[in-house]
């Protein structure tokens, strides 16, 4: 298993390099100097044109494209992510401040979707053709069809403004750093972010369960006189879960992308929100850096899903 994981990690590296190159290319294409944002803004402020030219030479900003790319790459690897165009704050600081919020939101949404979606999918499969099954199918369709931001707006109207059960936005009140204390703020955004994934997981669980329950080993399990719940879960869902895990792996990028919209609506101070503001403010360095890291997040998540899939199914060859 360890060898398997290491191999997968090594395979990721070329991809990561290519993507970093593309990101750099994007930086070059945006208006303004591609790399000057790497220089601390106070050094650039109020300099005379000659001094500026000297600084440019110093930082190698006049070198050929490839050289600039590698300088940029080395800086990134050393942890210097440059400075935001809007307010000069180091980008690294921005990311460190915002990623916990996004992580919290994404993990919550992922957990809710997986658990709820699987449960509903199993129920649909076991009671195939029943009213519950049909209702859930339609509900699932609805779930993937409603625009997330619209659902967000509706739920804010309903739960926050009309019923006043939950707060309107924001992540926490000052001092509520512990998860449990600000969980009221998390519920609505996590649910809305997870709706699409829940619907997908539900649908996949259902069809995977239906496939699995037709298999011979289910009949064998029954022939041993095992109770239905055990046949369904221990024999059925245990095998059916693998394609669902693969699906979740595929849909993780959407979860990360969806957080951009959700964070904006719910005023959730995460990376998605920062990204949105960056795009609107034409803060290109921040836009590209966040995009780069979002890809890394996706790659790491895919790796974890691969490992999980191999752990779940002993038939997957580890070499």
């Amino acid at each position, binding site marked *: 298993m360890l060898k398997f994981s290491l191999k997968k990690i090594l395979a990721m590296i070329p991809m990561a390099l290519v993507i970093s190159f593309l990101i750099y290319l994007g930086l070059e294409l945006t208006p303004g100097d591609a790399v000057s944002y790497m220089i601390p803004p106070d050094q650039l402020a109020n300099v005379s044109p000659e001094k500026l030219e000297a600084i440019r030479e110093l930082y190698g900003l006049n070198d050929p494209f490839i050289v600039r790319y590698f300088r940029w790459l080395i800086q990134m690897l050393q942890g210097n992510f440059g400075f935001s165009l809007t307010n000069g704050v180091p980008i690294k600081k921005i990311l460190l401040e915002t990623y916990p919020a996004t992580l919290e939101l994404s993990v919550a949404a992922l957990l809710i979707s997986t658990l709820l979606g699987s449960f509903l999918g199993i129920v649909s499969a076991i009671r195939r053709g029943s009213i519950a099954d049909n209702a859930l199918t339609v509900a699932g369709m609805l779930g993937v069809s409603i625009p997330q931001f619209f659902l967000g707006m509706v739920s804010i109207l309903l739960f926050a403004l009309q019923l006043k059960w939950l707060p309107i936005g924001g992540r926490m009140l000052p001092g509520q750093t512990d998860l449990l204390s600000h969980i009221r703020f998390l519920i609505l955004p996590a649910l809305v972010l997870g709706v699409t994934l829940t619907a997908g997981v539900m649908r996949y669980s259902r069809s995977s369960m239906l496939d699995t329950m037709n*298999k*011979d*080993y289910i*009949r*064998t*399990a*029954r*022939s*041993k*006189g*095992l*109770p*239905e719940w055990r046949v369904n879960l221990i*024999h059925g869902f*245990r*095998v059916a879960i693998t394609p669902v895990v693969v699906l979740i792996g595929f849909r993780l990028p959407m979860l990360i992308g969806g957080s951009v919209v959700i964070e904006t609506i719910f005023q959730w101070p995460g990376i998605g929100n920062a990204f949105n503001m960056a795009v609107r403010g034409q803060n290109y360095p921040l836009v590209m850096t966040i995009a780069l890291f979002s890809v890394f997040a996706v790659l790491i998540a895919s790796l974890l899903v691969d490992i999980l899939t191999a752990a*779940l*199914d*002993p*038939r997957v060859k580890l070499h």
Partner: protein
Amino acid sequence: MDMKPVITVDNLRTYFYNDKRCNKVLNGISFKLYKGRTLCVVGESGCGKSVTASSIMQLLPVLSRIESGSITYHGDKNDIRIDQLERNGKTIRKLRGSDLAMIFQDPMTALNPVYTIGWQIMENLKYHTTLNLKERRKKAIELLEQMGVSNPGKRVDQYPHELSGGMRQRAMIAMAMSCNPKILIADEPTTALDVTIQAQIFELITKLKSEHDTAVMLITHDMGVVSELADDVAVMYMGNIVEQGPVREVLKNPSHPYTSALLRSIPVLHQGASQDLQPIRGVTPDPFDRPTGCQFGPRCDFYTEQCTQMPDESAVDATHSVRCWHADACRAAQKPVPDHAAGQQPVVQ
């Protein structure tokens, strides 16, 4: 030899309901299973052999049911009407795995791929015995050894895909026999295996039968297997048992045109290339477009008007019965049937 039956099937009808059609798969079959005896149920694909097994185990698919008739299990203390039991209810679940056991055709698909074979055997023990974890594991290894699995201590922790076909089937038999069932139903257990392994598996089943006095119901389409292993045989065609009785009797004196036609269409080992093989004319009818009365009618040499009515079961002698109006004519017209038993030579030393 105990002549009290363990299972009595009486006039069983099982209908399938797929695609809004009604398929009368079993149309009134009756037979008995006895301790320590092997009943071979033989017939072509689609004649209802597997459905008979599923009916006894109450493992029928959702879109089907036992229409009428009875299946009675004669347990140690009392008789239980299996057909009246709720599917997957407590009673039948207690019987399955401990009194009634079944092994299936393809061990690769019949074993759960994500659990070790030891785990799967131990699961059966967990639900039907009071052994603790250590004892269960010990028993599982013992069982594998009894079934002839080499290196059982290592195999018990392996997954089905890591074993060979023959070993997988032995593992499944170990699982089925783990609680010493009174009845073992084997649904074409060697069809998916090599011929050399077949002999070994049958040897194993015969050994178990005599050691544990199990009643074995062996489903097969291979007459060679019947002549080798069966004590009794039931020949099925399109949902009816057309002839049944002790195997020597039926093979020597086939009284149903289908039985004798079957016997004549199969080559006998070692009798040479000049055997006179006669395939059965016609084809099996579409289950939704059946002939009226005796199902074999259109293909039968002895067909008369009377055959549009399904024949009752008539006795040829005390233990041998047949469903045919023209049983006597059939027997009289017998060319000497090739003796399938005579041609057999032991395949494995």
